[in-house]
């Protein structure tokens, strides 16, 4: 009898639990769909830091810079305009004095006013802490002083690097002095900065190991000052661990914007299942240049003729059409993005440029003395030694792996023995920085206001034992380095002056071929119009918005996209 009772009680409990769960689901206090934007593609691991001075891949918290912390200016890469942001205006009053006037009435999210003292404090951080990425600015900056509540004066030496400084204006996050001044060097440079307090459009809400949630700041200064209100009240940034899940979620309309690279999106876009920025190829905005770095201190890559032969041998069309299924566009030999095409000298490109031409590759190799002596189908060096090279990219980066396979195939067809190899990310990175690779792909120059950003990646100098952020092939040319330095010192308003130097740089670049720009990686973006509409499109004559959630792009038009979104009916 008792055991039967137990069974009955057990069944009742199960029934109760089930009813509870079902009714629980029915009254779920979920985020309102019409107030929430779901995005993915910016984070690759659990969130680890909200330090605005570490906005790179490390943080996995896109929005720390742009949502929470803001910059003096924003920048529109498509029309090449600086947009006053925290600053109301900025003017060069002389060649080495720059005055900024802040907007009145900006507050931090804890209610304190944002004043010139905060800007001065932020800029001075880099003077004290060499580890901060913008510390080199102090090589040509003398002092930053507050002029009243809202004025900031930057005083420079005789030779300020205008290009870099302009770039810094829209990349240095302004932090609140009253919350930061007691912090130690370690907390400032590498601290996790949990529960960040900033001035921006969104506040930190919560995070889980696979998501970051941001809540709209209803007291954001730009709501009144600029009439801008981001449409979504909440933004849920999801980290998916595979492409198929990201794709499935966009198709279901559960994710509104995916900034993952999803192979095959071209077909889905043609069928109208997802939307993309361009209606046809290349579907995506060109975001950065994939460059094949050649290790110029190792033979035969130390030979300009061999490097030029490589440039002719690589079938970029196959990379575009096969590896990427038309989601990217082939790059100009100058490597400059379409948004910076004003600085590419077409005359130089016409005279010295290259395109895929196996016959020309063979001719260049033969003329320089590379011959197949032992009859294995691959050329030997002029001194008779065998050539066996590797081209690398990180393992798991499937698009790049497909691309280096094409590079390897087309070089083999041209008689150059080149194998494609994909080591783990860490091993790849170490090889690149210590110069122990043959050839490798890299794309670390973001969209920018100046061609100097790309040249700073390609021709980073001086050459050190570890090249951490550019010139991985250790191409050594003082003439070129001087030109890059000269470019950095030209006023950004002096377009003709910039063009003249760029033209000289390109002449050397296309003659010497220190590295080979191959294609433009896209700003991967596929969106669903089921909940939110009015996404940035090519044809809407409103180019000030970018369809991206990537870290570092909010102030480049990502935030404007949020302000222009509209609810679907």
């Amino acid at each position, binding site marked *: 009898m008792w055991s039967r009772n137990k069974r009955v009680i057990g069944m009742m409990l199960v029934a109760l639990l089930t009813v509870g769960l079902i009714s629980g689901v029915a*009254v779920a206090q979920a985020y309102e769909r019409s107030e929430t934007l779901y995005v993915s593609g910016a984070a690759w691991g659990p969130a680890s830091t909200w330090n605005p*001075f*570490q906005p790179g891949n490390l943080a996995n918290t896109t929005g720390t810079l742009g949502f929470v912390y803001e910059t003096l200016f924003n920048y529109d890469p498509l029309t090449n305009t600086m947009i006053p942001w925290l600053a109301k205006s900025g003017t060069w009053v002389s060649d080495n004095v720059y005055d900024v006037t802040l907007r009145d009435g900006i507050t931090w999210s804890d209610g304190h006013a944002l004043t010139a003292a905060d800007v001065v404090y932020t800029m001075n951080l880099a003077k004290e802490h060499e580890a901060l990425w913008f510390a080199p600015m102090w090589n040509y900056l003398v002092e930053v002083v507050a002029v009243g509540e809202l004025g900031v004066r930057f005083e420079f030496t005789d030779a300020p690097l205008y290009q870099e400084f302009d770039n810094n204006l829209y990349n240095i996050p302004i932090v609140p002095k009253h919350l930061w001044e007691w912090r130690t060097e370690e907390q400032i*440079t590498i601290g996790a900065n949990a529960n960040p307090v900033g001035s921006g459009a969104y506040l930190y809400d919560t995070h*889980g190991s696979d998501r970051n949630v941001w809540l709209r700041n209803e007291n954001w200064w730009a709501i009144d000052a600029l009439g801008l209100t981001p449409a979504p009240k909440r933004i849920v940034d999801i980290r998916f*661990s595979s492409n198929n899940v990201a794709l499935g979620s966009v198709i279901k309309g559960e994710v509104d914007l995916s900034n993952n690279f999803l192979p095959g999106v071209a077909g889905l876009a043609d069928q109208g299942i997802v939307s993309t920025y361009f209606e046809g190829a290349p579907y995506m905005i060109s975001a950065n240049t994939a460059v094949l770095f050649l290790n110029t201190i190792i033979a035969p890559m130390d030979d300009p003729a061999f490097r030029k032969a490589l440039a002719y041998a690589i079938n970029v069309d196959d990379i575009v059409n096969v590896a990427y299924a038309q989601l990217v566009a082939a790059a100009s030999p100058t490597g400059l993005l379409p948004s910076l095409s004003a600085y590419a000298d077409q005359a130089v490109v016409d005279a010295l440029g290259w395109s895929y031409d196996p016959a020309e590759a063979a001719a260049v190799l033969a003329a320089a003395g590379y011959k197949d002596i032992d009859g294995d189908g691959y050329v030997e060096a002029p001194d008779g030694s065998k050539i066996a090279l590797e081209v690398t990219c*990180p393992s798991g980066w499937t698009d790049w792996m497909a691309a280096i396979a094409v590079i390897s195939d087309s070089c083999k067809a041209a008689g150059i023995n080149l194998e494609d190899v994909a080591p783990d990310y860490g091993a790849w990175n*170490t090889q690149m920085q210590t110069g122990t690779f043959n050839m490798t792909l890299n794309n670390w120059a973001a969209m920018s206001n100046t061609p100097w950003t790309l040249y700073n990646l390609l021709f980073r100098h001086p050459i*050190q034992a*570890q090249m951490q952020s550019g010139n991985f092939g250790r191409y050594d040319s003082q003439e070129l380095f001087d030109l890059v330095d000269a470019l950095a010192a030209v006023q950004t308003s002096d377009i003709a002056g910039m063009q003249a130097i760029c033209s000289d740089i390109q002449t050397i670049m296309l003659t010497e071929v220190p590295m080979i720009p191959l294609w433009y990686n896209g700003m991967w973006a596929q969106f669903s119009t089921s909940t939110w509409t009015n996404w940035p499109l090519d044809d809407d004559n409103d180019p000030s918005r970018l369809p991206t959630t990537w870290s570092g792009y909010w102030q480049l038009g990502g935030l404007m996209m949020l302000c222009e979104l509209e609810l679907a009916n």
Partner: protein
Amino acid sequence: MKRYFGRKLLIYVITFFLAVTIDWLIPRLMPGDPIQNMLARAALNANAAERMYTYYTHAFQLDLPVWQQYLSFWNALLHGDLGISTYLFPTPVVDIIKAAVPFDIFLLLPAILLSWWAGNKFGAYAARTKRLDNTVLPIAYLLTATPYMWLGILLAWVFGIILGWLPIAGAYSYTMGTDLSWAFVGSVLKHWILPFLSLFLVGFGGWAIGMRNMIIYELEADYSHYLEALGAPRKLIRKYAFRNAILPQLSGLALQLGVIVAGALVTEVVFSYPGIGYLILSAIQNQDYFLVQGCFLFIIIGVLLANFLIDIAFVIVDPRTRKGMVGE
């Protein structure tokens, strides 16, 4: 019995020491430099890189002689300090593991136990039962031979996208925070079903086949024929056969339970389920010595613990073990 467990315990302690030593050593044999990788990802100023490199190498004690690194590793370990991750800098390794492992246990423990239980029951029942042997068992073969990735994607596609019954990603809805409520619990369960099912099906097939073959083997053994000759009922013979057949299955179970804390990498990838497996992969790819060490430490502890429990279980279920202990 005291001697039996005393000896076992000694073996476990030695195994633990050796395993942890290997755990410390292996990551350091990988090509690549963790500090360099961390700095490259941290957007620090490259001009200060040299200085920062020295600073961090010292902070992580990677500039010490190897034997000193090894000793301070044990010292920190015995104080419960697993260090700081370089891949998810500056998060402590313990925090990363604490946040990820509960999801793995919640997913894998029921999947392993239930598939073991159901698979063995079914396998034993199906053996020498013509109809089942010819119908359901081929399905079990199919299930266990299915590439797991494919089965997972298929389940997600049918139940998630075509029928739209179940979510395809995450451990709980992306539309809610983690406040403990009925809605949250319901969401967690709903997101659990597909990953669980995929693991259960594959596990079930494997256990069922193993048990079926084992039972057939036992039914051919001399004691079964003897019992048969004595005229024992079929049910009794099968009961004895089952008891003998379950022993190797128990060892198999121990192996699976032991590596629970390693997560289920492929499940985590297919269903975007948060867990430790994906993090271990990322940690290895990024030469994160400390996260790799920390994760494998728990795997070592898990394997040893599971083996110890099974040792105890054997004493209970296998009279021969008890006999052996008395005989000593």
